[in-house]
């Protein structure tokens, strides 16, 4: 999984006014960043100048919260995906709810897979994936924008992004006709959501709604997928997505 929140460049540094525990935790993360994956607890404790008992306890908490991971033989550590959120924390004196926290909350309310993609730089990139519902062949989504809901959302909302020259047919439902696709993209803007019905994989459907920045520009999409029989653009599901995406405003 890639970073969950935008990494803001900031010159803010953690100094003497931070609580002591935060300084220790940052020192241990720095040790892992400096020494590389596989660094042992002893090495981290020595590098950060933290007593071993304290270091072991804090390392376990950092692993439990996803800032560090244990390497598969359990003897060492590597940086975890949530470390990226520290950049956000460093830039905010009073950090608000993170994108990952909102997504975890939303995932608790649905049985379908829920992901967030960023459209930054005209490129489709998933920044927070549902760990329980992986997207099969995720790399093909960005190469076949016309055949999936998040791609259609991007085509409809992001100026300068065009469909691939050849509209490749992935299933019998894939829209391969340019006029039909143009109509579909107009509907995406009008209705406020994009729907994909077995266009990428037989038996799978998806919905996507835009995620906006604080100036209301579309900067990404909230993507929900599941079985074709259950994922339909019914008002309740669309409302859930729209409300969810509004909570993500400004977080991407």
């Amino acid at each position, binding site marked *: 999984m890639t970073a969950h929140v935008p990494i803001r460049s900031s010159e803010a540094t953690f100094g003497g006014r931070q609580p002591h525990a935060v300084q220790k935790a940052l020192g241990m993360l720095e040790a892992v960043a400096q020494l590389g994956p596989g660094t042992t607890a002893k090495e981290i404790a020595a590098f950060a100048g933290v007593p071993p008992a304290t270091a072991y306890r804090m390392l376990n908490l950092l692993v439990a919260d996803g800032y560090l991971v244990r390497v598969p*033989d359990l003897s060492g550590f590597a940086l975890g995906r949530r470390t990226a959120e520290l950049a956000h924390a460093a830039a905010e004196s009073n950090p608000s709810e993170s994108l990952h926290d909102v997504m975890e909350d939303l995932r608790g309310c649905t049985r379908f897979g829920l992901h967030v993609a960023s459209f930054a730089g005209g490129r489709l990139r998933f920044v927070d994936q549902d760990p329980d519902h992986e997207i099969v062949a995720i790399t093909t989504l960005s190469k076949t924008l016309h055949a999936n809901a998040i791609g259609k959302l991007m085509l409809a909302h992001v100026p300068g992004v065009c469909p691939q020259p050849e509209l490749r047919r992935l299933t019998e439902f894939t829209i391969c006709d340019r006029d039909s696709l143009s109509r579909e993209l107009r509907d995406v803007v009008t209705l406020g959501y994009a729907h994909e019905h077995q266009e990428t994989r037989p038996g799978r459907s998806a919905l996507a709604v835009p995620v906006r920045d604080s100036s209301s520009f579309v900067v990404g999409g909230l993507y929900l997928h599941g079985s074709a029989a259950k994922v339909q653009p019914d008002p309740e599901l669309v409302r859930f997505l729209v409300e969810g995406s509004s909570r993500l405003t400004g977080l991407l």
Partner: protein
Amino acid sequence: MTAALRAAIDRAQAAEPAADQVFSPLRALGRRQLSQLDLIGQSLSTIAPATGMVFIALWMTVSGPGFGGVVTIAVTTAVVVLVALCITGFTRRLAAAGSLYSFVSQGLGTRAALVTGTALLAGYLGIAISVLAHGALTVLDLAELVGLHLPGAGAWLMAAVVLGGIVALIAVRGVRFATRAILLVETCSLVLIVATMLVAPSGSATGVEPSASSLSLLPFLALMTVLSMAGFESAAFFGPEARRPLVTVSRTVLVTPLVVGALFVFAAVASLSGRGELIVGAYFDGLDSGASWSIVLAVKVGMACSWFASTLGCAQAGSRLLYSMGVERVLPAALARVHGTLRTPCVAVAAFVSANILGACLYLLFLQDESTEFDAVVEVALVTAYTLVAVASLRFLHRIGEDMWWTRGASVFVALLGGGLLAFSAVDGSIHGSLAVPVALVVLGAAGPLWRAVLRRLRPQSLATIGVFDTVETADLLPGAGTLIVDEQGRRRIVAGDAPEERM
């Protein structure tokens, strides 16, 4: 922020998503569903403290060990807390559906893991058989209380099959639903038992005669307390299905024996002052004890609920162990099959509950009146597992370089005490003419090497997978901070930079 950390975060922003993802071998289970409360529910229900309290009250009342009995129970509780401390050495660092079996493999290798696996299967299945049989009998007692007379072995067996069937359905329906249902059931029965003990006057001596044990009284009481607390670590089976498992499971494993120990000490003290006699008489003698119809009904309902909750807790835990062994191919791979939408190990649940029902029927037919040796074998199996996990904790923490003086002290103490208790039980049992304990120990000791030899011959690749746990996934890593690969031997590793040309 410091330089290396900032650089790592900047790299994460620029990194492309990994094309080939490596997933946890246990990801088929429903992940991150169980809260702290659910885990406590699972642990408490497996232990069924309400039933343990009644049996402690029975022994305290009938055998009259006096204050020594209370001290024995309190000391045994303290030892169980130390065992819990050894187990948290693992649960703070990994989440495994195989619980102690997977933990022991991390510290002591495959032979000891298979001994622990056998001990856990014997222990959990043994408890499940015993509680299902008692549950069936209590349900029939209840039927008789309300005027429905169902005589004969057929009625027992039918009650066991129906109860087992309900347990299987709830266990497959979903882990969260099951744990919440059993927490509710167990809390109700616990409140009932505690309230009855608090309000009961000092009664006359009960006429119940518990089956005689081959052991001396206080060691027997200690072993019975261990048996009554069996399953205190059952939350560890649910690490892969829990939220923040490294924190919540560890907390549950530590808190549960403290809570249950306090309840047992309360039951023992209440019995010393004669307050346990009403409940013991009402449960074991029914209306003949002189207790009113409503008290007998309330106590029996509470106990039936508790037996049922314990059966469900054991089925949930045992099925996760079978699932884990199925994933490793140590047992048939079919056991690793997970329900499509509910994401529970349905085949493993069916297998465990089937064995449970069959065992309960045999128990009802042949062991109902003489279960001391059966209980002794279950106790020995559990103590073996706890002793091995203590030794494994010592080795594991030393291997990863995170041992402290107090973790070493706790492990050595529990290992010596557990080993001593097993040796004493074997000798004491032999002196009193009971060979069940020494034979059980020999069988358990031989099971690991024998099982390993069979696997080496039939499925040698499964030996490399023993000890499967919820390993780190590609998505858990900070992009650019390392690459998770699966090497040619099937081992997972994190390497710096991009993946070398190896099988992903």
